């Protein structure tokens, strides 16, 4: 469904993405992982059109979407729940959800009502607080609202950027359960997450980003078992350990010589 090839994106003067290629097949959950600053959000912004890549192409259902306006990409069927939720603070829960339907064409009121009921079913607190304004909701409720709003667009591909950020562990569990359910019901998902373990537990496949490059890709099960993952996240690569060892030895001799 989504085919990204050789994307290079610049953030001002920094090259944030140095040649990214990934695929998302229909019906999958694909996890995009990596440490902070690795380029995960930049990848999402490039796909949604917020950032224009300097090189590479992106195909969505056979159509190249690089260079398209953000609004047009949304209408093509890609919905995004960006990092930090971004619900409209001055609008009510219902209004936020209704605005989520903006890219839909040819949907009847019945369709929209049905989808809203579905969102309320997935996230009961939203139903309870449906007239509350965005800023009055808690962090977890805002996250639910953001995802629900993403669902209201009846999008074919849902991009989720760090849905667990800032949420207490219990809520994280809830949210991932719902993400799984949404996927089983037919929505394809590209999931960006810092919490690699939780993401891989529900994903089919995963990609690991490190400073703008993809360094690891495999099925979720393999990645979970892979000790290398720890190195990618905690910088415990072999070459780093060696450098440290060398330096320690050099330091010892240097300290000795400076004492003379």
């Amino acid at each position: 469904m989504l085919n990204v090839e050789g994307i290079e994106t610049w953030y001002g003067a920094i090259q944030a993405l140095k040649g990214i290629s990934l695929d998302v097949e229909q019906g999958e959950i694909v996890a995009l992982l990596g440490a902070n600053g690795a380029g995960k959000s930049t990848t999402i912004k490039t796909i949604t059109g917020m950032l224009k890549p300097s090189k590479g192409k992106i195909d969505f259902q056979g159509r190249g979407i690089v260079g398209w306006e953000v609004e047009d990409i949304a209408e093509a069927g890609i919905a995004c729940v960006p990092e930090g939720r971004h619900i409209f603070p001055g609008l009510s829960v219902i209004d936020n959800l209704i605005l989520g339907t903006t890219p839909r064409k040819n949907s009847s009121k019945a369709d929209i009502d049905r989808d809203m009921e579905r969102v309320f079913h997935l996230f009961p607190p939203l139903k309870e607080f449906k007239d509350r304004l965005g800023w009055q909701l808690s962090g977890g409720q805002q996250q639910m609202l953001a995802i629900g709003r993403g669902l209201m667009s009846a999008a074919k591909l849902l991009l989720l950027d760090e849905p667990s950020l800032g949420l207490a562990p219990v809520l994280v569990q809830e949210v991932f359960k719902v993400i799984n359910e949404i996927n089983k019901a037919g929505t394809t998902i590209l999931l960006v997450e810092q919490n690699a373990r939780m993401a891989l537990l529900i994903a089919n496949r995963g990609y690991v980003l490190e400073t703008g490059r993809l360094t690891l890709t495999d099925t979720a099960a393999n990645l979970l078992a892979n000790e290398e993952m720890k190195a990618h996240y905690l910088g415990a690569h072999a070459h780093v350990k060696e450098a440290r060892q060398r330096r320690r030895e050099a330091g010892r001799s240097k300290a000795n010589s400076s004492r003379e």
Partner: protein
Amino acid sequence: MDLSTNLQMLTTGLAMGSIYGLVALGFVLIFNAVNVVNFAQGEFVMVPAFVAVWLMEVFHVPYPLLYLITVVFMGAFGIAFQRIAYYPLRNRTFLPVVISTIGVSIFLKNGAQIVFGAEPKLMQRPTPPDALNVFGVFIDPQFIVIILCTLALLVFQHFFFEKTKLGKMMQATAQDKEMARLLGIRVAKMIAITFAYSSILGAAAGILVGPIFYVAKEMGGMLGLKAFCSTIVGGFGNVPGAILGGLFLGVVEVFAAYYISSAYRDGFAFIILILVLLVRPQGFFGEKIAEKA
């Protein structure tokens, strides 16, 4: 110090405050949409006032139609303004934009003078000139019209923004432009509509206040500045803050002019502004914005 005089002044203050509020509202909507402080907002009041007078004098257009034409004209004016004065500067930093809107303000003032002549004009009143006796208080009916019309406009605006999808889309654009785009909301269109509506608010203010003052090229200058003060006093970027700030300034101005000094009448708005900036810079209803390191 009698009650009747005070009530009279209160009405005057509320009427002038309504005008300040309308202009302030126009300011705030543009600022929320595109982060620009429009120093030409006062001219959005002056231009329609001149247009209305011209239609009255030259074509003898009857009142309801007159207002309709003026309002439509200003809607188009707003969109033109956005295209010419704002759009080329949308990526510039603060200073060039401020100077540019000041330049437009001067352009409009002098343009009006050339097109309509240098003499101040009198706008005919739609209301009778005799003061109404309301419970022993003598009130200029035009003031009552101003207050009522402003209320009606606010009700309409509330309905539009809160109950229609387009209104919600505009609110969304003002609250989070990037997210709005991600949802497929055509932000460029929302911005154009914002400018148009802001100009229409100016048209309303111009038509309402025209009969009370002379319609002259300087009409908008002080008005715009005081409206700007209103938004800061009420809480910058805040819609209810703009209206309430305007009402507050209007009332305080009238009372201060009577009880303290009428010579410094124009200065009170700015004195209050400076006091508010010192004590509570976010205004009565605004929120603190801190710069992130």
